[in-house]
């Protein structure tokens, strides 16, 4: 009997593919070496569906040199379990796929249709399935709904999307060459001089991204505010006080602003001119990943990588389409009516969905396109499990945005009255919505403030009821947050939709930035300065963008992977060799900052409340548990201590607790929102709860990694 092996990217996807393609009964869950796969009867034979676990193969150095050795130019693709620690599960997975592959005579890559998915499927088929990549076929789909999966199987591509897979390989190889050599150069330089090991990393995209944050920090640090004055004016119109704007938004000279107040206070003005304007506000464009991440941050405060993680779970649950897309298009082939009918089964979406179904259904699309996927859209299916609150929020946002895409253009009306008071001019402004259109469909995510003006006529006299001066100062530029930094990367065209969020997360992990409003640390400054000084091109956005373009050309089959990799080696070789000769010099520049960083990362800003000595984060040598202890233990016998969460990356924030004034701490755990808490208040609450005999849970639940 012919046997087909289908490789998916994740286990959930494997089940959906098996369910969709099986023609006789439910998929049979089988296992090999603890690795699950599904078997169904279909297409006149047996279909086995097995998932990868993300990337099972990775780039690594060819030789068995030490991990500290550099430069390294020769590499190959090897199983990830041989390259990284803690990947034992991957070893089982590869062995099992190899065994299952022996049963098959036909192979299909059904991983996500993008660079990473194509590469995951390609490497598994090539290395684990004995070179099956040469004869394998490719399924292309954007949702995991049964209908789309069956369609994708019926219209299967005769061979793998090699150009996409090779573009992915090239990206991994080039990034590896940059990352391994530059990061080792920094780490070894620091180690050589300071004798303290500290992982310092940089990369092709990470370097320029960090530079954005550092440059912003530099602008803020060297910012000199200048004074200006604004006039807050209230006009009496038929007994009602309405705020008016002065003709100049800000006045830069104090005496001039005081003169305006003197000229206008208590005076009567005349309405010289009335202007009104009606304008149309088109619906928002469909969600590409970046816009989805930006909206998720704006409305819910979700960091980009969190929003992406949630969106991917919703995709695997067949609730939304593939989220890693750059497209702002919704082609008719997705079946607008079917989706709207599905959404109308949910009571809260019934009125808008039903209203849309009764008219012409045409989406308002944006300009951006993605050859692989449409924009993010809901499938219209109801959740099969109870969704977490955060999942509900993202799903609701995607649904509302989809509904809004099909809405009518909204109409707004604005009024402006010009009031002359002597030689000065003031404006009254009002705005209101005439036709809600899509605004109704977008629900809570469309916010417009309406200001209604009373009836006014030209020549009408109005009194200046109140006028006062407000002294202000110019503001430094705002710090980046994860969402605005992601937008900056996108505008600068560096990184990809799949990698940007992770790169931002790495900046936190390496101690280059802290806090949600990203503050660049001294280490970030020093690393950026060193790289800018010794290898400026590595930090140059233009150069990184050029490389991105070359990789896009590989996707289009216009450039060869080998050539781009060779050019990268040729370019990097002299830079890295030069860095190697300057290890001592670079190490000296890094060493003080690393020691300072280490000290400040464990020393609290607030002193011990009992003896006034410094408080530090320490570990119990026996239990390895971390806590806040007093450094005066050996001098004053002070035993003051406070408990700390045991899991997650701990950061001492500069902010103080509003209740008790103690220094706040932050714990970041993978896949969770950063948790900010006050150790003193936590203890107080615990004591109060004990008094009431109530159990209080520790502030952070168990997570994967443990770091001080």
């Amino acid at each position, binding site marked *: 009997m012919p046997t087909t092996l289908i490789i998916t990217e994740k286990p959930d996807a494997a089940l959906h593919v098996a369910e969709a393609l099986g023609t006789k009964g439910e998929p049979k869950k089988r296992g090999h070496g603890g690795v699950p796969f599904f078997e169904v009867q279909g297409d006149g034979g047996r279909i086995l569906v097995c998932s990868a676990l993300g990337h099972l193969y990775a780039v690594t150095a060819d030789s068995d040199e030490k991990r500290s050795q550099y430069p390294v130019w020769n590499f190959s693709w090897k199983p990830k379990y041989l390259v990284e620690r803690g990947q034992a599960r991957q070893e089982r997975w590869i062995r099992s796929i190899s065994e299952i592959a022996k049963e098959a005579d036909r192979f299909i890559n059904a991983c996500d249709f993008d660079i990473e998915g194509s590469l995951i499927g390609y490497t598994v088929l090539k290395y684990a399935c004995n070179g099956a990549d040469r004869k394998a076929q490719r399924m292309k789909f954007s949702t995991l709904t049964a209908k789309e999966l069956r369609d994708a199987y019926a219209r299967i591509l005769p061979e793998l999307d090699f150009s996409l897979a090779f573009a992915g390989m090239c990206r991994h190889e080039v990034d590896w060459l940059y990352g391994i050599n530059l990061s080792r150069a920094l780490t070894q330089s620091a180690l050589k001089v300071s004798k303290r090991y500290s992982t310092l990393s940089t990369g092709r995209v990470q370097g320029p991204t960090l530079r954005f944050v550092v440059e912003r920090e530099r602008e803020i*640090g060297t910012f*000199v*505010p*200048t*004074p200006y004055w604004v006039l807050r004016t209230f006009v009496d119109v038929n007994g009602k006080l309405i705020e008016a704007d002065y003709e100049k938004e800000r006045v830069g000279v*104090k*005496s001039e602003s005081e003169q305006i107040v003197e000229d206008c206070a208590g005076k009567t003005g005349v309405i010289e001119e009335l202007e009104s304007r009606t304008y149309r506000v088109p619906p928002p464009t469909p969600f590409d990943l970046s816009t989805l991440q930006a909206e998720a941050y704006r409305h819910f405060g979700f960091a980009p990588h969190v929003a992406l993680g949630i969106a991917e779970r919703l995709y695997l649950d067949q609730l939304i389409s593939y989220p890693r897309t750059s497209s702002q298009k919704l082609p008719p082939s997705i079946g607008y009516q079917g989706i709207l009918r599905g959404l109308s089964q949910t009571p809260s979406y019934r009125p808008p969905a039903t209203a849309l179904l009764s008219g012409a259904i045409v989406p308002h699309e944006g300009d951006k396109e993605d050859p692989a996927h449409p924009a993010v859209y809901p499938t219209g299916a109801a959740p099969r499990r109870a969704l977490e609150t955060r999942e509900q929020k993202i799903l609701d946002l995607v649904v509302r945005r989809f509904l809004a895409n099909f809405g009518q253009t909204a109409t707004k009306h604005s009024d402006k009255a010009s009031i002359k008071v002597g030689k000065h001019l003031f404006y009254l402004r009002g705005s209101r919505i005439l036709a809600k259109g899509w605004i109704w469909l977008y629900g809570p995510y469309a916010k417009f403030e309406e200001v209604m003006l009373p009836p006014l006529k030209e020549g009408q006299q109005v009194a200046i009821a109140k006028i006062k001066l407000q002294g202000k*100062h110019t503001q430094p530029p705002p710090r980046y947050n994860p969402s605005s930094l992601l937008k900056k990367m996108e505008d600068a065209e560096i990184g990809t939709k799949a990698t940007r969020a992770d790169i931002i997360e790495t900046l936190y992990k390496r101690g280059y930035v802290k806090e949600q409003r990203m503050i660049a640390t001294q280490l970030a400054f020093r690393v950026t300065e060193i790289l800018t000084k010794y290898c400026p091109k590595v930090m140059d956005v233009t150069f990184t963008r050029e490389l991105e373009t070359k990789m896009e050309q590989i996707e289009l089959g216009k450039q060869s992977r080998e050539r781009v990799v060779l050019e990268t080696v040729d370019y990097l070789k002299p830079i890295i060799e030069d860095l190697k000769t300057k290890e001592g010099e670079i190490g000296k520049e890094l060493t003080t900052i690393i020691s300072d960083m280490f000290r400040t990362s464990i020393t609290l800003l607030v002193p011990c409340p009992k003896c006034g000595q410094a408080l530090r984060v320490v570990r119990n040598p026996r239990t390895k548990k971390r806590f806040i202890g007093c450094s005066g233990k050996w001098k004053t016998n002070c035993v003051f201590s406070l408990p700390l969460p045991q899991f997650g990356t701990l950061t001492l924030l500069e902010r103080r607790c509003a209740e008790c004034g103690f220094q706040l701490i932050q714990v970041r755990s993978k896949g969770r929102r950063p948790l900010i808490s006050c150790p003193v208040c936590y203890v107080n609450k615990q004591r109060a709860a004990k008094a009431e005999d109530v159990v209080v849970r520790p502030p952070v639940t168990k997570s994967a990694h443990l770091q001080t």
Partner: protein
Amino acid sequence: MVDQCPLCERRKAESSDLCEFHSEALANLEGAFASWRNAYGGDYSKELYFNELETLVETGQAVKEVINHLRKREVHR
């Protein structure tokens, strides 16, 4: 170290007593004085200017360090 910025660990910039970072803060400090003088009138003093900047949260940390440095240098003279 002779070539070290007196305000941080960085090296002095060329033809400056300060590093590039603090030199930039100094340049901004000197450049903005004209705006402040224009805002408050010709008799507005540098001392008032420095005092005001030190109290403002908008003033960059490096600028505050430079003001402190200039004051100390003045005392030494």
